[in-house]
């Protein structure tokens, strides 16, 4: 059996609940800590991550499997395609695709939807260094996902991150009125609450039957 057999819907649910990219793969922690301070920034960044992660995963999948992967260029004449090895550039290409996509989206939004640009514009540039997006691309390669699986994974991971950051923003707003020990304020207490959240999300482990 190969991974092609899992339905994209299953992957989507798994990426949100059972295998949350933040709570089980720790990706996107930096922006999670920084942007969960306020609810509105959390919403903005969460939506931006979801959007970018979905589309760049699709783009990266196509580029990886049609250009970079071993044997992808075998249609080239004279066995040239088999001799070119581009896999090593995957990481750079992924970053470049993410950065370029973010740029393009920013320009398009600025031009056609100033309201959206106002809402998301601040967060788009930050995404380039959000490791969740790059992480999704790398996991997609390691796990050998097909196109629709990869897109579902990208979308689900974005939603999972959005969910976690929203919960955390709500909690941190409430924590402002708690007398947290001084050394724990900010980063420390956020990490501990994330730990409680990660424990609670363990309940979903095994919810998705992959067999």
């Amino acid at each position, binding site marked *: 059996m190969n991974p092609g057999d899992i339905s994209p819907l299953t992957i989507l649910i798994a990426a949100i609940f059972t295998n949350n990219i933040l709570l089980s793969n720790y990706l996107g922690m930096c922006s999670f800590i920084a942007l969960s301070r306020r609810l509105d920034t959390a919403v903005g960044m969460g939506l931006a991550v979801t959007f970018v992660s979905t589309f760049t995963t699709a783009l990266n999948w196509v580029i990886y499997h049609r250009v970079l992967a071993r044997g992808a260029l075998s249609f080239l004449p004279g066995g040239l395609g088999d001799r070119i090895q581009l896999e090593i550039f995957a990481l750079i290409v992924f970053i470049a695709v993410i950065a370029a996509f973010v740029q393009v989206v920013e320009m398009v939004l600025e031009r056609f939807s100033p309201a959206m640009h106002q809402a998301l514009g601040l967060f788009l540039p930050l995404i380039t260094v959000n490791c969740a997006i790059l992480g999704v691309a790398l996991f997609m390669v390691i796990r050998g996902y097909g196109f629709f699986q990869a897109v579902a994974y990208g979308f689900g991971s974005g939603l999972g991150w959005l969910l976690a950051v929203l919960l955390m923003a709500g909690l941190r707003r409430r924590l402002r009125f708690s007398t947290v020990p001084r050394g724990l304020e900010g980063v420390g207490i956020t990490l501990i609450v994330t730990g*409680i959240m990660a424990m609670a999300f363990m309940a979903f482990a095994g919810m998705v039957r992959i067999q």
Partner: protein
Amino acid sequence: MRFLARLLDRAGERVKKSPAAPLYPLVEAVNAALFSPDETASRAPFIRDALSTKRFVIAVVIALFPVLALATWFYGLKVPVMLLVAYGTGAVVESVFAWFRGEHIHEGFLVTGILMVLIFPVTTPLWVFVIATVFGIVFGKEVFGGVGQNPVNPALVGRMFVFLSWPALVAPSAYPEPAYRLFEWYSPAADAVTAATPLLQLKTGVLPPDASLLQLLWQVKPGCIGELSSGLLILGGLYLVFVRVVNFRIPLGMLAGSALASGLLGLFRPMPDLVGAWLSGGFLLGMFFMATDPVTVPATRVGKWIAGLLCGLLVVIIRALTPLVEGVMFAVVLMNLASPLIDEGVRALQRRKEADHA
């Protein structure tokens, strides 16, 4: 210290101001801190009785005392010993933190300590129980500044940690059959008889034919210490609702939520009997005594309904769709974690409505 005093002050003011005096200062303090004052006065009219934290604690202890007494009858001396251990550990940890902060120990731990005992099976080794208590108090309460400031139920935080750490030692497969053991010390060697809990039987679909709902209600059944008798839990819970220590919206929401989830999932797969699911496992204990903890639920009225629904939904989903047998613990914590967000959402909607009216 000054901060707490300020909170209590503000709560006190509101007691004087409104005819609907606060339920207990702590909730009020948190409410006051979360709401801006002008918003709250109109939105918390369901609080009718002036109760101090002490009276709240006493009410919960009264409600849970019969359960503890019955558990001692059936599980033996280990139950009161566990209670002493919980209080002892709690006192040490709390006084260390209180000393650092320069505060007094809070009587709120009386409740956490009892709950701590009730959510473990009697088979739990004492060292595991101590670790759970310490972890729960430190990471569930003290890091947030102590009683009344914790976003999640501290007892459940401790329970989750040991559940994930040593699943075999606290798992449902180790629950012993209740039998008369008063004045005996429970030991796994002497009491090797373990029994499948009704919940496990419901899950695997092999509920024995003689187990009617009435029996689930009145008979004692294997499980965690506090799950011994559904009847006593219902009586205790109703008492708390009756004296208005517990808000009725969360329990009702949970019942509705679990019914909804059970019905929806029932369209696709066979589901265990709904009332049976209510009466077995930790549902009642969680519903009346955990999920209702006033500091960890939404402050808005609509928010309480939503939180209850969510919790009920999650219980059924976790019980039905994951390999876990019991889902109440996780469901309550997930609900706690979502509570501030629910409040934010409800308030945003209310603000929008008011803006429309104006």
